[in-house]
């Protein structure tokens, strides 16, 4: 399968991974190889087969609607890169 640099750039942007042009080119080569590996499965006829998301055919369990979690802001924010007045800080989001 032939990936282009444009494909790689687009995917890197979707995945929020900064990449230099050199990195994009080397990624393109390696990813192409991996896609050749994956290509083997594309030709298989899977008509009428149901996709398998989970190992077992079970239903989602439901949780009672009760509050079980207490305020742990102090502990959780002690490991945060930047906080102020209880808020997580990030560069300004421009709409």
């Amino acid at each position, binding site marked *: 399968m032939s990936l282009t640099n444009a*494909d*790689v750039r687009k*995917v*890197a942007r*979707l*995945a*929020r*991974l*900064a*990449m230099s042009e050199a990195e994009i080119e080397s*990624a393109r080569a*390696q*990813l192409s*190889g*991996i*896609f*050749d*590996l*994956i*290509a*083997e*499965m*594309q030709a*298989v006829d*899977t008509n009428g*087969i*149901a*996709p*398998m*998301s*989970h*190992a*077992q055919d*079970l239903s*989602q*369990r439901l*949780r009672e609607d009760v509050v079980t979690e207490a305020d*742990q802001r102090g*502990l*959780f924010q*002690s*490991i*945060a*890169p*930047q906080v102020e007045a209880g808020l*997580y800080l*990030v*560069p*300004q*989001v*421009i709409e």
Partner: protein
Amino acid sequence: MLNSSLQQLGSALRTGKISSVELTQLYLDRIATLNPALNAYVTINAETSLAQARQADALLAGGKAQPLAGIPIAQKDIFCAKGWRTTCGSKMLENFVAPYDAHVIAQFNNAGAVNLGKTNMDEFAMGSSNETSYFGAVKNPWNRNAVPGGSSGGSACAVAARLCAAATGTDTGGSIRQPAALCGISGIKPTYGAVSRYGMIAFASSLDQAGPMARSAEDLALLLNVMTGFDARDSTSLPRDKEDYARDLNKPLAGLRIGLPKEFFAEGLAQDVAGCVNAAIAEYKKLGATIVDISLPNSKLAVPVYYVLAPAEASSNLSRYDGVRYGYRAPEYSDLTEMYEKSRAQGFGAEVKRRIMIGTYVLSHGYYDAYYLQAQKIRRLIAQDFDDAFKQCDVIMGPTSPSTAFNLGEKGDDPVQMYLSDIYTIAVNLAGLPGMSIPAGFGSNGRPVGVQIIGNYFAEARMLNVAHQYQQATDHHDRVPQDIGL
């Protein structure tokens, strides 16, 4: 002491022959000596471990101790342990001190075991050699030029080099079984859903499963007893009654039907590995088993299917690592997008980034049906193959890995070569079945060989029985690497 079984250790602790503090200190001293060369551990907190050991000694003195009380266990650094640095082998979490305990960690704490330290692993569990860790490669204790396997390479090394009494690992495509094979130890990945994933840093959610790594099937049974059990915080955790995984260890094997998939003995399998596995099969025949030739026709698609599904799930699971609430944040950025892009580019290693990109691609608009959906459909075919096979046999066996441990750096440039290390193990995760690896001798270069045992859903007790009987009749699992100070 270092070659005792967990049951013997437990007995010694309960009868006061040794204290948990002494035992823990013994391992800590060995780690101090050997870890610089082997790099099995990422984090040691001696004081914390010893404090836990003192608590265990109090329990033991009171006579109310459970089987694993006081026993030092190495924890793969993928389990969040409250107050412990939990890195997942990544720069992204280099300084992440977990604010809560994973269910598995809590289970061991409640059983009175001692957390001996956090073991090295492939970054975010993505790898088969423990070479992708940000904290450096782990060395195989049998030959320090060789890889220990991955992603649970640190745990496997720690068990083999007697740097812990036992360890935990996780297995998404073979990450318990393959390092167990390459390091000459025993490891089991139970049925999907048997062990809670709460607090276990996610790689591929529908495939990840935690399991024990130790020196024998007997040990694995005791560890599974602690690790398994329903957890309400994990929606995929199975609501099953607790069982004693050691209950069937001593059953005779007469009448056991062992299925040998022809696909596992085909091209790609190294001769020396085949030799050991065939010898193991012969041993099983002597123990009363019969051999059935079976086929898993879709198993050759397991690797490509896995390398669509696992990266897809991973690409989404790893989106939370964005430098906002915890983890690595790039030191310089001009806006939000750049903060994300640089934090992630700098925080993640090459293999992780590769898999994120594959995963993003196969889920993206226009490709979902051809890749992701197609892979899920073939996954069902693979599971059906096993279903059909288990109508003819009780367990399936074969080699765990196509070769013995390869050298560090040998598979460096070509990710696909690395991926093919998992050809015998991956299908088991896709089906959600239990699988284990036990030592079956040594290859032509003196490096360990493992034989894989695959069971039907919830057949762990049977599999451990099958493994235990072999280990009673052979001594591969008792062998110890040289140069580890014993």
